[in-house]
């Protein structure tokens, strides 16, 4: 080689090497510290959990930041977590009706809360439904969260840019020096080599651009002196929490007991179960939780990307191998004889020819060897096929076929990461896309695979995951206490000790030809009942315009009357005990016990069905009418945002309701007293249920629902004269029109 060329190459290499060396040194020096943990302590500091997770994870924002923020919002009363049974995967998130003042929330806390709000249906969202379906969306959401957390940590002086402006400027200046060296070298080269059109300046600009871009890439955050001090404290908290083995097993709903300790536990990585259940789509696809074998563990997944063999079938590989061998062989045959390892010709053209020949020969050799290798391994792959059974950890599109500009790309291969229990590391398989729709993460699958191409050749789902069961069922609104799911034209509801009585009642109603109540379909599954699904709309609070209409009020009263009449004969012989709510004497009918808009099915403005007989009890008609009137009229105090109407309007609607029901005069005289007593009985029932460990009622009490009922009872008593006057007054035709106008004027959301 020419010594001048050698000199040029060395100069370039030294300049570039020096720059990259300096870059490496700077990276090394600015590496985030790992402070020594302070002694284990249970004293919490003032930093929010997301910032804490940044500090204890060596100044990088992980998925713990979002999870701990969510728990912290729950600990502070902005959200509520409820777990209906032993399975933490069934935890639901509730938006409290009256959350605390949110003016002090930090941007990322709002970000997380808004995510929950956006997904909530009637204020409820299953915890497992929080994860994202769309990777791009998840990425954008997380990027925003990350930048907000970093900004907060910087503002508190706990974190700073890993490369400060001085370092970036220095590296840029150094890149300029390297670019100048490159320009000089190129100029020098062109001066002795007499090359036409040597891109001297262009080369310099490219080098400068690339190096500046590398220097400008954000290498993340690093510690500050204050940050190190605070991080040491939190590492002490982490040691304290990790020392408590139970902490590892706490479910998210235990935030009710542990308050912020749970959120900080999640921030420092001491709450394994909670972090497993909570997945805000921050799910790291390379480090996935698996529940195979009954215990949760993390599996590291590798996703092969570059090699052409992955996911291919033999019929596709063989022609490729053949072509590769043929081309390789051809190249060797043609150029091989001219291959000269030590060219010593002085002629420049000959020199170039020799170099090109050498290159072609190398390419030919590579093609030949790789073709042969593919051939041998591809065939061997057929022989070494094996069967794997395990839990699906991850499923996503790997390769797609482009179908032109107007049609979307069609996937033909999916990544399928499976934990087969053989270790904590695995490599994703290539699943033909036609099977991808059949399974979902958490399912247990049996696959037949070829280990070298990682291709799945046979596939069967052998077990479904819990999260899938949750997703497949539509969670019905209404009720508010029990989780009720619709499956086709049936409804599956949890049962209680009283359900046998309810089933007898429903069977009796069916035998009577009363069609507005669901029929019992199946009671064989322990703990659940399968009833008819009654099609229509069920209103919640505040009521929909349809549920607030006079037509709904009248049809509700008429249907209640029909229901009572259908149970009158049965009530005489029905057992008095075994109901969820104790019987009330004198027994005239079977009271529904919760005859309210949330338990009635509307067809347009007409009430056509009654659901949820869990609170049914033998009792007098007026006991049911009083509560139904309270709900349907509604006889609510002005502060109760679930209600509507002035007291005069309410009185008019009460009159309509009682007229349509056909309530007799003596019952009308007692109605107000009974309504007050009925509301007090309801509050007593809530207290009794909560004390007996019913989490839903405990939640209602915590939300202050009982105070609302008591306040309404006071209101009804205070307005007794207005209501009783309306009940006694002679029939008035204009009431109906006035009420109808009210109902129709109502728009959703005007409360």
């Amino acid at each position: 080689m020419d010594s001048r060329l050698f000199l040029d190459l060395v100069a370039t290499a030294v300049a570039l090497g020096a720059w990259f060396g300096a870059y490496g040194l700077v990276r090394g020096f600015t590496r985030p510290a790992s402070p020594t943990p302070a002694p284990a302590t249970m004293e919490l500091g003032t930093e929010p959990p997301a910032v804490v997770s940044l500090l204890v994870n060596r100044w990088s924002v992980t998925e713990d930041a979002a999870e701990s923020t969510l728990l912290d919002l729950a600990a502070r009363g902005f959200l509520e977590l409820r777990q209906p049974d032993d399975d933490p995967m069934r935890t639901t998130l509730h938006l409290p009706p009256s959350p605390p003042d949110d003016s002090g929330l930090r941007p990322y806390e709002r970000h997380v809360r808004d995510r929950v709000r956006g997904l909530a249906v009637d204020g409820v969202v299953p915890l497992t439904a929080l994860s994202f379906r769309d990777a791009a969306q998840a990425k954008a959401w997380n990027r925003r969260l990350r930048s907000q957390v970093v900004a907060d940590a910087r503002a508190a002086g706990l974190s700073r840019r890993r490369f400060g402006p001085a370092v970036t400027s220095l590296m840029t200046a150094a890149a300029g020096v390297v670019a100048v060296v490159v320009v000089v070298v190129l100029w020098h080269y062109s001066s002795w080599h007499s090359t036409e059109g040597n891109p001297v300046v262009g080369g310099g600009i490219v080098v400068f651009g690339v190096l500046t871009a590398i220097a400008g890439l954000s290498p993340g955050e690093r510690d500050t002196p204050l940050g190190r001090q605070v991080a040491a404290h939190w590492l002490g908290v982490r040691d304290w929490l990790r020392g408590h083995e139970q902490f590892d097993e706490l479910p998210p709903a235990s935030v009710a007991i542990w308050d912020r300790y749970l959120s900080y536990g999640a921030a420092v990585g001491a709450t394994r179960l909670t972090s497993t259940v909570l997945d805000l789509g921050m799910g790291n696809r390379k480090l996935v939780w698996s529940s195979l074998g009954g215990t949760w563990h993390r599996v590291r997944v590798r996703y092969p990307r570059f090699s052409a063999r992955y996911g291919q079938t033999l019929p596709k590989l063989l022609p490729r191998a053949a072509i590769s061998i043929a081309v390789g062989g051809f190249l060797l045959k043609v150029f091989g004889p001219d291959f000269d390892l030590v060219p010593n010709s002085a002629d420049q053209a000959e020199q170039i020819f020799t170099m090109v020949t050498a290159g072609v020969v190398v390419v030919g050799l590579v093609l030949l060897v790789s073709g042969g290798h593919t051939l041998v391994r591809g065939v061997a792959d057929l022989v070494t096929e094996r069967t794997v059974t395990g839990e699906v950890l991850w499923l996503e599109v790997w390769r797609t076929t482009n179908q032109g500009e107007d049609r979307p790309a069609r996937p033909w291969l999916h990544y399928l990461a499976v934990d087969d229990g053989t270790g904590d590391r695995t490599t994703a398989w290539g699943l033909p896309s036609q099977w991808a729709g059949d399974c979902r993460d958490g399912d247990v699958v049996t696959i037949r695979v070829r280990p070298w191409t990682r291709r799945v050749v046979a596939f069967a789902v052998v077990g479904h995951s819990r999260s899938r069961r949750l997703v497949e069922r539509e969670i019905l609104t209404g009720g508010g206490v029990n989780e009720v799911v619709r499956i086709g034209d049936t409804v599956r509801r949890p049962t209680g000790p009283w359900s046998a009585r309810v089933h007898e009642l429903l069977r009796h109603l069916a035998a009577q030809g009363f069609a507005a109540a669901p029929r019992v379909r199946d009671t064989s599954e322990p703990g659940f009942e399968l009833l008819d699904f009654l099609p229509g709309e069920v209103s919640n609070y505040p009521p929909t315009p349809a549920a607030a209409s006079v037509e709904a009020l009248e049809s509700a009263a008429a249907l209640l009357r029909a229901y009572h009449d259908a149970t009158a004969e049965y009530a005489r012989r029905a057992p008095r005990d075994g109901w969820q709510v104790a019987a009330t004497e004198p027994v005239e009918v079977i009271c529904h016990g919760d005859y309210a808009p949330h338990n009635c099915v509307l067809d347009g403005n007409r009430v056509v069905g009654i659901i949820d007989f869990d609170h049914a009890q033998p009792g007098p008609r007026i006991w049911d009418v009083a509560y139904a009137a309270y709900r349907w009229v509604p006889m609510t105090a002005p502060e109760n945002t679930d209600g509507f109407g002035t007291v005069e309007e309410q009185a008019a609607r009460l009159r309509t309701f009682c007229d349509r029901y056909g309530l007799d005069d003596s019952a009308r005289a007692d109605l107000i007293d009974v309504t007050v007593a009925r509301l007090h009985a309801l509050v007593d029932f809530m207290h009794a249920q909560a004390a007996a460990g019913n989490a839903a009622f405990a939640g209602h009490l915590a939300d202050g629902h009982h105070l609302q009922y008591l306040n309404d009872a006071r209101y009804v008593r205070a307005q007794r004269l207005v209501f009783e006057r309306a009940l006694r007054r002679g029939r008035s035709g204009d009431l109906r029109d006035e009420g109808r106008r009210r109902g129709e004027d109502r728009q959703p959301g005007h409360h």
Partner: protein
Amino acid sequence: METGSIIGAAGLFCLAAVLMIGWALSAYNRLVRQRNQVQASWAQIDVQLKRRYDLVPNLVETVKGYAAHERGTLEAVLAARTGAMAAAVAPEVSVRAGAENVLTQTLGRLFALAEAYPDLKANQNFAALHSELTRTEDKIAYARQFYNSAVQTLNTSVQSVPTNLIAGLGGFRSTDYFEALDGERAAVQVRS
């Protein structure tokens, strides 16, 4: 042939023995770790309880200035504090928990009584002491949760087979829980 099988059996036996010893060591170390955690958690409760003893005399002095004639309640608080400090040396957790609960109750009565004295409530010193005591009681509540959780872990290990064998040999015993007041416990249950 026979020698071969004897050697095989001896090898198996040795292997089993090594595994057993390995398991016993790890179980023992785990018990030690759990016991240390119980002690560390206890120390946290202890710190907070002592902090409360320190605050009580100041509180009583402040209240005396405004409601000297409520002697009965004030004396009850001081007596409960003395009782709690005496119980602090008792080895049984339950004895101490009982004495501390008495102190909590009498303090509750004292604060209820303060409601009737607007001047006292307006006193800054009283307000500061009140909030400090409330904070301390909060910390006691959490420390008690941590302690009970550590005790539960230790007790489970000590009582369950086969770790109970190692626990018996190593002198590990079940420890008492630091019981909450009945009223407080009910409150926690409703919230869970």
